[in-house]
């Protein structure tokens, strides 16, 4: 009797999954053709993409990069790709590239804005990354003045005198709060620098300048333009608005009725009107509010208004951060016996600011986009320049290439910042 029982001793080879259940086909079936309406939608979408790309890609690549006018460019494309071919005239970007970036800033001084732009990353690095040494924050504090001096040029003594004002305020606070109370110290810390800047700093700077001349070639404001102008206004606006916004947000949260009313009124007023009306105020009215005879330059006025505008939004962002803090933090700080400023400085603000960083970044994106509005009051930001270029004989009639380029640059800036803020949001999420 032979044994017919059979026991398999080794494993069978795995079978390949059915074609419809693996790889790209499975993925396609699940994600694009799961049912009939979805399939129709997918096909329509694919056709639309093909339709757009089949028009745009040849246009973008059958292009001309070196021509001095639109007519020349069109004929170059016709010569290269046959009569009737429509291609992009990227030569307008090639022709006006430096202008779109720097405006009319003197060519031999381009290194100054470039240097400042690079240094900007050094300055904001310690704010954004925890790992870096805290000493770098000192450079961050000096950076605004350095940037101002390098961009506008002129005597080094003026920014130094402005720094001196802050130092004086700090000293005044230390001295007076020892002698009297910290409240009096605060008042002194505000009053002393204001008096210094209003009455003394100008003369002292002029005097020092005549003794030790330390100056570089100055550049007039009307030479500023292009993306440099947008970035300048945006960065100055956002960095100045941060301290003002913090003060406004604290004022809005405070129990002091009058302070609260002033802050709420300011915030709601600024947020209620469009930026363009504030820019009109900058261009037509702001000089009226200054003592008779004062006349300061348009970019400075625009920066003042943009800063006010940004601080109202910043105040709301920071208020959101303050509100998001658990109540236990406030109570814990109180129970340690810290007074208001101590608890704000040591406990509340560090956490609130950390929570609000993503929103600060997105309000910066908003502000950066809003800087284009200055073209309406006649400043030559990229959009103002584009109007100029299109009004020019050589480039009259160019649309897609020019606007496409400007849009692309804005998009790159804003998109990367928004991705960064999303990354931060994930990183800062300490919840569960």
């Amino acid at each position: 009797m032979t044994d017919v029982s059979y026991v398999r001793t080794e494993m069978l080879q795995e079978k390949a999954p059915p074609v419809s259940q693996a790889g790209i086909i499975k993925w396609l079936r699940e994600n694009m053709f799961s049912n009939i309406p979805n399939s129709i939608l997918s096909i329509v979408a694919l056709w639309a993409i093909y339709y757009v790309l089949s028009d745009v890609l040849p246009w973008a690549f059958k292009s001309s990069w070196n021509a001095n006018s639109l007519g020349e460019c069109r004929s170059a494309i016709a010569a290269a790709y046959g009569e009737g071919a429509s291609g992009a005239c990227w030569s307008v970007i090639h022709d006006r590239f430096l202008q779109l970036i720097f405006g009319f800033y003197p060519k031999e001084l381009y290194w100054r804005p470039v240097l400042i732009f690079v240094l900007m990353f050094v300055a904001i690095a310690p704010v954004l990354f925890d790992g870096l040494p805290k000493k770098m924050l000192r450079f961050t504090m000096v950076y605004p003045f350095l940037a101002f001096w390098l961009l506008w040029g002129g005597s080094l003594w003026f920014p130094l005198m402005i720094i001196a004002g802050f130092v004086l305020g700090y000293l005044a606070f230390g001295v007076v709060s020892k002698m009297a109370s910290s409240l009096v110290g605060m008042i002194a810390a505000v009053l002393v620098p204001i008096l210094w800047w209003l009455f003394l700093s100008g003369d002292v700077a002029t005097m020092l300048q005549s003794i030790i001349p330390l100056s570089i070639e100055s550049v007039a404001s009307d030479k500023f333009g292009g993306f440099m102008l947008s970035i300048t206004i945006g960065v100055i606006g956002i960095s100045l608005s941060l301290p003002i916004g913090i003060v406004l947000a604290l004022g809005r949260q405070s129990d002091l009725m009058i302070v609260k009313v002033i802050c709420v009124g300011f915030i709601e007023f600024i947020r209620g009107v469009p930026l363009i009306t504030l820019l009109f105020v900058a261009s037509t009215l702001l000089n009226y509010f200054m003592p008779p005879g004062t006349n300061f330059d348009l970019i400075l006025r625009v920066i003042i208004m943009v800063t006010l505008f940004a601080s109202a939004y910043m105040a709301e962002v920071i208020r959101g951060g303050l509100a998001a803090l658990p109540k236990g933090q406030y109570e814990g700080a109180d129970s340690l016996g810290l007074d208001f400023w101590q608890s704000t400085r040591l406990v509340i603000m560090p956490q609130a600011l950390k929570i609000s960083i993503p929103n600060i970044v997105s309000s910066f994106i908003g502000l950066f986009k809003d800087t284009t509005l200055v073209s309406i009051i006649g400043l030559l930001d990229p959009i103002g320049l584009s109007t100029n270029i299109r009004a020019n004989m050589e480039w009259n009639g160019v649309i897609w290439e020019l606007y496409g380029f400007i849009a692309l640059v804005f998009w790159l800036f804003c998109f990367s910042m928004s991705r960064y803020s999303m990354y931060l949001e994930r990183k800062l999420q300490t919840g569960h």
Partner: protein
Amino acid sequence: MSTITDPVQGGFRISMLLYDTRYRSMTIQVIALIGFLLAIGWLFGNAAQNLAALGKPLNFSFLGDTAGYDINQRLIEYNSQMTHGRAAVVGLLNTLLVAVLGCITATVIGVLVGIMRLSKNWIISKIMTVYIETFRNVPVLLWIIMTMAIFIEVFPKPSDFRGADAVASMKLFESVAVTNRGIFIPSPVFGSGSMAVIAVFILSIVGIFVFGRWAHKRQDETGQILPTFWIKLGIFFIPSIIVFYVMGQPISLEYPELKGFNFKGGFHMRNSLIALWFALSLYTAAFIAETVRSGIQAVSKGQTEAAAALGLRPGRITSLVVLPQALRVIIPPMISQYMNLTKNSSLAIAVGYMDITGTLGGVTLNQTGREMESLMILMAIYLTISLTISTVMNVYNERVKLRER
């Protein structure tokens, strides 16, 4: 009952204003108020002095002067012989027009895009992501100006429509003319008897509401559900169409026609209006889409699952469980997007659409030289609009707030 706090010893001393927490807040407030008033006084003192020196003290009577400029886009009667005040009203109406139009289209596009972005269809959701990221990250002013430039440069001239071998032709069954001077669409002409059609139409809308309430009540009492959507759709269309034909088609369309150098007849939508409307809607829709998406995602999955466990069908889960909860999250940021759209509509000045910024803050300001007064009124108007919208938002928030414990 014994008191815990010690009575104040020795009465009030001046130094208590600084050191005693009971009085210190008063001191701070008084100092803040004085500082604030000083600053305001200084600013306005300067302004008064400067304006007096220029010989134009604050005076609003220029609003009654003859404007002397034309506004091509107007909702109410206006000509150049009318006053600056009237021009400002025309501008305000134009602002509201583009704001309302923009809000409607932005909402429709935004909601659609937001929902499609969550679609399981990979390619659709990617396309929507591309749309959202493209529009959100480029300044709205650039969109407005670019749209305007494209309208002017790319669309055919009215003269291209002329002749047998015309380069351009009218779209949609020869009814719409898209030209570089604007878009001409047919306009309705109301003949005799059209009032009856309109009345029936209004009545049927009222009927829809009445029916909806009745159906709701019936469902509460008997538990039976009617196919309300289809019945409502029927009430919306059928009576009006019947009356329309019974009355002998009293409402007809007037088609635009090429006469001379331009199209005549029909309704002329100017480039500036359309460019502004189009760009603002697409830009704001990208933001609204994000709001809608995050609102829908904010409804926890447990809610959907619980509703499914109760035996609700997918459509009803969406309409009865997910949407009401999502709307609570969606509507506040949506309203602030409406506010942003209204404020952004002031960019009309870049394409020459005469909104309130273009009339009062533009031509009137330049002609009369009354910067202070014009801008004060302009800001007051925008502030009123914004505060009205935010009041509405607060009322809504109060109504839908979760009542916890």
